[in-house]
């Protein structure tokens, strides 16, 4: 169990069904998530003293500038004050960290972290465009049409060339994630897939195929975070956030320090392990940033779960399944649960809280999980957040 200090805890969690949610507005998805978090914690909106709202691309995706205020209002969090947090695909974890620092500052004891993204109200090409503009627009995107599948494909090609990682190993990440996504009632795709189906799916950016890619998902996720004194009164099972790490790097992809890993995520992991006073082998369950199958393989390596270059083998040996060395993304991950950008990191925190409480769905609960980790990467490492939780 993590030996880091128990100062701040998750006391309530809830999320909307992830998916192509053309039945609901972003505000209504936020309501679904926060209602469940209130029910889970026994709190009401008036108990929340501040809200941190993570949303990455609302300007492009729903046309709303300053997208925190409408969400905060719809879920009854006025007049306590709110802010928007943005760190590309790591937005949700940046919001969790902001809640942590807000509580430790003493300015609030109970903070709502709400992440959301509504991605399906624009055509797919425009969603890819909006995300692609999370890279270097002036020097890369405008010249070469660099999309996120393309960036991660560049990493996959190099990883395959340098370490002998195979397209089948990438596909096995998807097979595992879909297996568990099928057990998660909140997942976007609740459907198992075969290795053959993944391998034969159409190419998006070679070597990445359709089933190597995370989903363009609508969804919202909420966690209520409290100081130690309040958390112990509210909850019998507070989940302590006892290790935090974050790091950053430049956006011009060709100038990255590594094409076979995310350098900032290595540093974020190092910080989080040090603060929580644990080692990679002590982690019982993890949600890592599998925006593409290669990303899960690199995350396992970058966190020190296995050596650099051995992630493909680790996956092939099914060490990422429940019962393996480190059950990873057994909620379906970004791959099958879905990747509503601003909600993703918050949903990772929810999954780890449920796992550590022993409340995960049948078939995907990790037995006796005491220490969990979230690993959330923004863009291609411009932002990296690693959090370690303990019962």
């Amino acid at each position, binding site marked *: 169990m993590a030996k880091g200090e128990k100062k701040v805890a998750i006391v309530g969690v809830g999320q909307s069904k992830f998916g192509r949610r053309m039945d609901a507005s972003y505000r209504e998805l936020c309501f679904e998530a926060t209602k469940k978090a209130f029910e889970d914690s026994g709190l009401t909106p008036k108990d929340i003293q501040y809200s941190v709202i993570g949303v990455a691309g609302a300007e*492009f995706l729903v046309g709303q500038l300053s997208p925190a205020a409408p969400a905060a209002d719809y879920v009854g969090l006025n007049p306590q004050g709110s802010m928007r947090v943005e760190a590309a695909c790591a937005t949700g974890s940046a919001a969790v960290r902001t809640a942590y620092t807000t509580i430790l500052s003493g300015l609030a004891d109970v903070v709502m972290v709400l992440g959301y993204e509504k991605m399906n109200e624009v055509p797919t090409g*425009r969603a890819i465009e909006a995300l*692609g503009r999370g890279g270097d627009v002036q020097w890369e995107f405008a010249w070469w049409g660099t999309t996120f599948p393309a960036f991660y494909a560049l990493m996959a090609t190099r990883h395959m060339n340098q370490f002998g990682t195979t397209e089948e190993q990438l596909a096995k990440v998807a097979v595992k994630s879909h297996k568990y996504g099928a057990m998660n009632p909140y997942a976007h795709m609740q459907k198992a897939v075969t290795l053959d189906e993944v391998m034969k799916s159409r190419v998006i950016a*070679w070597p990445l195929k359709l089933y190597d890619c995370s989903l363009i998902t609508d969804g919202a996720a909420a966690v209520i975070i409290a100081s130690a004194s309040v958390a112990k009164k509210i909850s019998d099972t507070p989940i302590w956030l006892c290790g935090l790490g974050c790091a950053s790097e430049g956006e011009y992809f*060709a100038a990255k320090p590594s*094409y076979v890993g995310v350098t900032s995520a290595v540093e974020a992991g190092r910080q989080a392990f040090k603060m929580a006073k644990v080692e990679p082998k002590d982690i019982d369950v993890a949600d890592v940033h599998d925006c593409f199958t290669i990303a899960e393989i690199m995350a396992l390596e970058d966190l020190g779960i296995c050596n650099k270059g051995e992630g493909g083998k680790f996956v092939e040996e099914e060490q990422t399944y429940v019962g393996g060395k480190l059950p990873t993304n057994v909620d379906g991950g970004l791959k099958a649960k879905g990747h509503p950008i601003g909600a993703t990191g918050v949903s990772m925190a929810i999954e780890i809280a449920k796992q550590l409480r022993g409340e995960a769905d049948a078939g995907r609960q990790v037995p006796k999980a005491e220490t969990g980790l979230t690993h959330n990467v923004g863009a291609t490492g411009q932002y990296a957040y690693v959090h370690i939780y303990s019962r």
Partner: protein
Amino acid sequence: MSTSKPSPSGQQQPTQPFVTKAGKFFEALKEKKLVGTKCRKCGTNYFPPRVDCSKDFSEDMEWVEYSGEGELVTYTVNTTPPESFSKYGTYIIGIVKLIEGPAVMTWLKDIKPEEVKVGMKLKVEFVESSEMGTKYNFVRSD
């Protein structure tokens, strides 16, 4: 919703990268030269070019012309372009490590996807494009 604006030809252009103190980069492209910058104080190389050194905060920078020769570090065959690149269909994106050191993002041209190999030798080629003016790609040099 997109930040694109109409170009003189009336086409939608993906963005406007030309407003910068590093405008010499675009002038050099017109002269079929690929250039970057280097800090005269600490020697840091910048590609894409920066006129300010982020390491020591010096503005004393020099322009460096590259040979345009290098080696392919990695690549992808992108079949799913963003909205503003839809007219290009499938394109091969690569990273080329120049013999002078810096690595550049580029498209690989005049080569079939199945012929592309990591480590292959490449050289720069300059082309005119409606959106970007003179643009560079890389082609095989063997």
